[in-house]
């Protein structure tokens, strides 16, 4: 699919908003992969590709608990990259590659969040004297600079992801069997991630029974479809 400069720009703006939403600003959950992917699909003129990529990476995101200082992947900009790989292509043959690109970008996003946190800590140390003096303006400056740093991080991550998606489309040509095998592998791994995460959260209490009940009802619904 040919991406025009305007669409490219809108994808980077969307990726920046999505990256900011993950931690720094609002947390309205536009950073969830199926939301990020759905909107990216609309921007690319292929909403279904966005949903296919987004739902796949959402399965992986369900495995993540963003608690405390834990290091976790950034799936929002990653889903935008995956959607670009998938847009305009037969999904059965491209979902494996799209998912792989998305997972790699999400790992890079997790690393970039660590760097951002270190940079924020250095900024806080530089302003330690002003903070100890009760300078409200220093708090505001730190806050706005932190958000700006995250915006730059998110925009760069989206741009790198889009470049990776473009490179993969251009240079990675897989034969049909390999492409299908990769698609099946990422679907299976995604289901494992979602169920594994749910099992971990459920522990041994009644929640596990409700998870089992959900699986049974879901399997029954799927059988009737």
């Amino acid at each position: 699919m040919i991406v025009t400069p305007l669409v490219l720009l809108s994808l980077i703006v969307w990726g920046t908003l999505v990256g900011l939403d993950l931690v720094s600003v609002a947390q309205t959950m536009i950073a969830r992969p199926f939301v990020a992917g759905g909107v990216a699909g609309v921007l690319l003129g292929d909403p279904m590709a966005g949903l296919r990529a987004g739902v796949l990476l959402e399965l992986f995101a369900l495995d993540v608990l963003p608690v405390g200082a834990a290091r976790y992947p950034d799936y929002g900009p990653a889903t935008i990259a995956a959607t670009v790989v998938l847009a305009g292509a037969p999904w059965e043959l491209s979902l494996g590659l799209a998912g792989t690109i998305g997972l790699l970008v999400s790992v890079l996003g997790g690393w970039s969040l660590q760097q951002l946190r270190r940079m924020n800590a250095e900024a806080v140390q530089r302003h330690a004297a002003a903070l100890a003096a009760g300078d409200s303006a220093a708090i505001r400056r730190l806050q706005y600079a932190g958000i700006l740093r995250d915006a730059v991080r998110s925009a760069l991550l989206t741009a790198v992801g889009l470049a990776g998606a473009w490179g993969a489309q251009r240079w990675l040509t897989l034969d049909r069997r390999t492409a299908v095998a990769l698609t099946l592998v990422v679907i299976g791994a995604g289901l494992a991630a979602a169920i594994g995460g749910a099992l971990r959260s459920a522990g041994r209490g009644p929640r596990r029974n409700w998870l089992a009940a959900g699986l049974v009802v879901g399997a029954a619904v799927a059988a009737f479809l």
Partner: protein
Amino acid sequence: MNGTGRALLRLFSVQGVWNYERMLGVGVGYAAEPLLEDLKAKDPVRHSEAVVRSAEFFNCNPNLAGLAVGATVRAEYDSAPGPQIARLRTALCSPLGALGDQLFWAGLLPALVGAALVVVVLGGGLWGIIGFLVAYNIVHVWTASWSLRTGLAAGMGVGAAIGSSWVPRSIPRVGLAAGFAVGLAAPIVANWYLDPFGRLSVVAVLLVAALGVVSGRLFGPRMTGGRFALVAVLLTLVCRLILR
């Protein structure tokens, strides 16, 4: 806009400068700033001390940070001793972290995501996304507002206010809904993807999924879903290269 309104808006960027030094501390100080403005005219020295305290180390789930912001600001206006306010902040970190994580990250979020995925793959498409965003953010914004109001009203008694509130009571129910919703979504999403493939492919996907769950149980947090997927993709590519 009054101080409470501005503080509420600022709570939505409480993690804006999240770092390993003070974690949420500076963000909490940023959110508390509009509420502390009146103290400046009354007692400038106390105001300066309050600003210092407000930006010290703090960590909790961001959705419940309003309770800490409100309670500590109220305590400053009530002229509670500084060390007592510092102890209150320290004491609030763990419960607000644990309650918020269970309520939002392990409860409400997976419950709504699971339901939204079912709507999306059953043909609801983008409506599933819109419904999810609206439902989540109604709770998200209401909780932030409730947290700040409750903290401001309770002050040093915020612990008791949290204990008798809806938060601890709702966690088990939301957790059950989350378990059911994710369980419901998994087979329906699998069917959505596997519809065009043959039975052998379905068996292969189920095998990969089973292997992924087992490896997650065996290796623990080191083998996340994403890592398992990347290892599986790599092995698939190597196998395909050898078989060629």
